[in-house]
């Protein structure tokens, strides 16, 4: 809930506020809301990437990145050298556009940076923006929300806007889930837990310290934990190599009942034996991922365990992981055995996974699904094919390769849609977001140490926790109260 990102960067912000006295100079106006930024063009192999900001500090950010030049004329494309405000290092020669509000996409002051699409440039500019006081990465749907709030989208005329919104927010939700996977996610959760506990103890000391008897040394213990956290975060931020391995590209997950031929398809698409293939159901038990290039799009292809109930603990864990991975998918390749469509496992799969993705895709275009009926070679030429009730599907034989061209063609269309979605730019944005919030957290912890006033100190911890929970989710007041009542005997 505590949104304050730069709440405590007081000293830093006072400088620019004083410098810019001219009207519409782009200096942040007190109390007019934070300024947000995001990569808003497609990622992948595009020549130009567009990064957008919205909010009162937009003009200020533009001036800082294009220093020593002044703001360009409004709504005119101008060529500018962008450089990192901290190091002065040049980032890119880019086209910039300055849209003073209210004549802009969101109705607020906006800036567009059209930069060369390479990952290094894009992440460099995102990092530079993140370092400008008053700027923070946009949250799910925030640009759209601001545009609505300022009456900027003529909604009745834009068809399919609900889909777009859903796609934006859902894609970001999936991305957040991915972030939580892996080592960095694990670290962040641990830090957030420590910090939440330390904050809860400080809050308890404020709310109950004098009336109820808390144990001695509550505050001292919190101080020790905060100091340790500061050291850990500092070390992590200094060590650039410990960044998460970037899993770039669209996430395509192959799923289906056991023995439908999922692993065969993965091997076929990646042109190498990634997964062990056997006629035995339940051969694949873990999630196997492999980066591939499909029809020119970077794709992370995941093979998963066949979905079924009531098997051994190892396979059950595999099924759990498969479902988890399914949640994160941009595109689902749902596979069924064409010769086994009447079996309970096939019907169940159709009724659950396929139907629910189908229902979703009507209201949102975000999570896409292709239904593939494998083993078409086993269907007799005259015999009964898939019934008329079967949803739209593709026929394929992993053995003969028949139907592969059709599948690749369909994949190409789906991937074009997925990769054209501006918000599925995981690696760059993820990294910028992480950096921004971890640095913000570390800065706030520094303020905790300095504050003699306990209310101010607690505020610093609240801000620090706010940064971490932006990455991990959660973060409400109830969590704090749960810890207070769990750890201390307080009450009437």
């Amino acid at each position, binding site marked *: 809930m505590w949104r304050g990102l730069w709440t405590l960067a*007081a000293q830093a912000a006072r400088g620019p506020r004083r410098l810019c006295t001219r009207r519409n100079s782009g200096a942040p106006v007190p109390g007019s809301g934070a300024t947000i930024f995001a990569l808003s063009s497609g990622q992948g192999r595009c020549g130009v990437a567009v990064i957008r900001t919205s909010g009162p500090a937009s003009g200020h950010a533009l001036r800082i990145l294009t220093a020593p030049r002044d703001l360009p004329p409004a709504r005119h494309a101008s060529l500018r050298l962008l450089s990192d405000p901290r190091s002065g290092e040049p980032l890119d020669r880019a086209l910039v556009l300055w849209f003073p509000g209210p004549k802009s996409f969101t109705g607020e002051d906006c800036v567009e940076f059209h930069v060369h699409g390479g990952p290094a440039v894009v992440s460099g500019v995102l990092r530079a923006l993140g370092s400008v006081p008053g700027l923070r990465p946009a949250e799910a749907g925030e640009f759209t929300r601001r545009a609505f709030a300022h009456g900027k989208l003529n909604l009745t005329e834009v068809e399919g806007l609900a889909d777009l919104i859903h796609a934006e927010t859902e894609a970001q939700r999936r991305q957040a889930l991915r972030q939580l996977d892996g080592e960095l996610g694990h670290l962040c959760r641990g830090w957030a837990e420590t910090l939440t506990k330390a904050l809860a103890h400080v809050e308890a000391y404020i709310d109950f310290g*004098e009336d109820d008897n808390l144990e001695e040394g509550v505050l001292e213990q919190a101080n020790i934990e905060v100091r340790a956290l500061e050291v850990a975060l500092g070390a992590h931020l200094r060590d650039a190599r410990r960044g998460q391995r970037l899993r770039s590209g669209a996430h395509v997950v192959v799923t289906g009942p056991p023995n439908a031929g999922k692993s065969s398809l993965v091997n076929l698409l990646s042109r190498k034996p990634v997964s062990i293939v056997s006629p035995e159901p339940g051969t694949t038990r873990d999630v196997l991922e492999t980066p591939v290039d499909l029809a020119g799009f970077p794709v992370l292809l995941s093979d998963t365990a066949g979905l079924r109930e009531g098997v051994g603990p190892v396979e059950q864990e595999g099924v759990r992981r498969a479902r988890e991975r399914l949640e994160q998918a941009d595109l689902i390749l749902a596979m069924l055995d064409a010769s086994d469509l009447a079996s309970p496992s096939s019907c169940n799969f159709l009724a659950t996974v396929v139907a629910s993705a189908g229902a979703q895709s009507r209201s949102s275009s975000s999570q896409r699904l292709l239904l593939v009926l494998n083993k078409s070679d086993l269907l007799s030429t005259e015999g009964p094919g898939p019934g008329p009730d079967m949803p739209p599907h593709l026929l394929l034989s992993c053995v003969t390769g028949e139907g592969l061209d059709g599948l690749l063609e369909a994949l190409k269309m789906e991937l074009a849609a997925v990769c054209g979605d501006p918000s599925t730019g995981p690696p760059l944005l993820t990294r910028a977001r992480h950096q921004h919030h971890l640095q913000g957290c570390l800065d706030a912890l520094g303020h905790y140490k300095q504050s003699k006033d306990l209310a101010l100190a607690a505020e610093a911890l609240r801000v620090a926790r706010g940064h971490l929970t932006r990455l991990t989710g959660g973060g409400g007041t109830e969590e704090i109260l749960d810890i207070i009542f769990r750890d201390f005997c307080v*009450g009437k």
Partner: protein
Amino acid sequence: MFSFRGCGGRVAASFTKRHFPLPRLGSDSAEPRTPHFDVIVIGGGHAGTEAATAAARCGSRTLLLTHRVDTIGQMSCNPSFGGIGKGHLMREVDALDGLCSRICDQSGVHYKVLNRCKGPAVWGLRAQIDRKLYKQNMQKEILSTPLLTVQEGAVEDLILTEPEPEHTGKCRVSGVILVDGSTVYSESVILTTGTFLRGMIVIGLEMHPAGRLGDQPSIGLAQTLEKLGFVVGRLKTGTPPRIAKDSINFSILNKQTPDNPSLPFSFMNETVWIKPEDQLPCYLTHTNPRVDEIVLKNLHLNSHVKETIRGPRYCPSIESKVLRFPNRQHQVWLEPEGMDSDLIYPQGLSMTLPAELQEKMITCIRGLEKAKVIQPGYGVQYDYLDPRQITPSLETHLVQRLFFAGQINGTTGYEEAAAQGVIAGINASLRVNRKPPFVVSRTEGYIGVLIDDLTTLGTSEPYRMFTSRVEFRLSLRPDNADSRLTLRGYKEAGCVSQQRYERACWMKSSLEEGISVLKSIEFSSSKWKNLIPEASISTSRSLPVRALDVLKYEEVDVDSLAKAVPEPLKKYTKCRELAERLKIEATYESVLFHQLQEIKEVQRDEALQLPKDLDYLTVRDVSLSHEVREKLHFSRPQTIGAASRIPGVTPAAIINLLRFVKTTQQRQAAMNESPKTDQYLRDTDRLQERELQ
């Protein structure tokens, strides 16, 4: 309207059992057969008294109905007011010209500010109160309030009529039916029944129906509410035994003395009624393993503890403390009940053991070896109504013009009740006058946090105010409650006296002027160091330093600053309160500047109103999951901001809602049709305007 002021004594004196001044006289000569009021308040506790007087201050002819007049202003539980978070609420109640703070300034016997060393944002104003004095002063105030009539009587049922078509709700309340069958009509009704809805008192294994020891519960009313479709829950609370003062050996206990000087609760008072040296001390003692033993051995005799309906997370009684945190010493504060009271209230010893065991347990405690229990502790179980069924103005969704305030909404504590009482009283009155509701936002006050938490999240344990619940804690301080609420209360609600309003305006403008003067004075850090040698100003900074930044140092106050720079700062030392408040503003200045940004973001979402009559379950033009629809349907959030705080309502759902509202607005503006729409649009526009100012 005629005024009672000045003849308060006569009203009080002539007041007996069935006092019934007919309020509706006016110009129409036809005398009404049954009495008719603007606002009826049921219940004379802390919510009821504030609600009744607030409605009357707003100009409504108000009737306060209570079981017994002599229990008006009764402090049924602890003999104290305020504390951390609760003191904040009292300052806000006072800022809206409520009663409890002023009455505490006239009735306290031990004033002490908690958290003195932790920063002024979390100071907790607190006082031990003389129960008898409080009640006397409260009754005097109530009986002399213009436009307010008091009547004894138990309410059995509500009079319900057809709903007003331009509002939601399935019917409308238009009065009450008393137990004796008589009726009283009114334009709106406020229920502040506390623990009286199907109240049960529990001591040991005994249980008997009562709202408070010796008082009858309200059963008919509870049934009516249930029949209307209100979702009812059950909560429990408790109170400790009372001990004879002369049976306690204070000489071996830790003594706590009051503050010197005492800090008054009310903005209107410079001092309290009693000198620090005349105030009474409190004493501290602790439980020991023998207490644990008695609790554990006798659990089978303790039905209140056994029947955990759904126990709160905190420890409401000594039994739960022992069960949850075994082998520990627990604090027991021995608090005076009044100047000439023979009783001591052992705070921390709330219990429901059988009466004879209570004395046995108490005599195990140091200093209480010979203690006599005069009244045993007891537990209370009572009905509350899920507060997600009311709006932020405390009106129910189901019944138009019916308001709930206090424990009925699942809160605990006098201050929480008083805070809701003021808001309910103001809104019941505004509703009668067809004015827009008076809602305090989370960004404006603890009252706002309290009501927003209740109405959007509900509660499953008695809700108590903590400062940790408040996001903007550094902005919502006890010192500045008047700047936050008094001006609004005067202009929008009309519940604030002229005198208070003028004082708050003066203070606000003096503060603003003072801060800008302090910002304008700039010297080099070395010059400051010379001027105020005792301050630990670092001279390494080359930029000029503002006087406001110097005032941030712990060891600097306005006095020392004015000594260094007499012109123009001397004048700010003349008013103590102003000088202290300037110091506090300086302490938090840098953080407040940035907190303002977040506050604006929240306010922006709160200015986006959702249509009140939106049927979330069936509306088709908005894409929402079934789960989200159910949640929105039950809580009926009034703004996008409130909707986004409901757990499980996703960002996607919020944007879809926002889109729906905006398209509806556009379409309706284009067609410019029904009056209901106009009303809604005007409300929204008004809010947006306010935001811009």
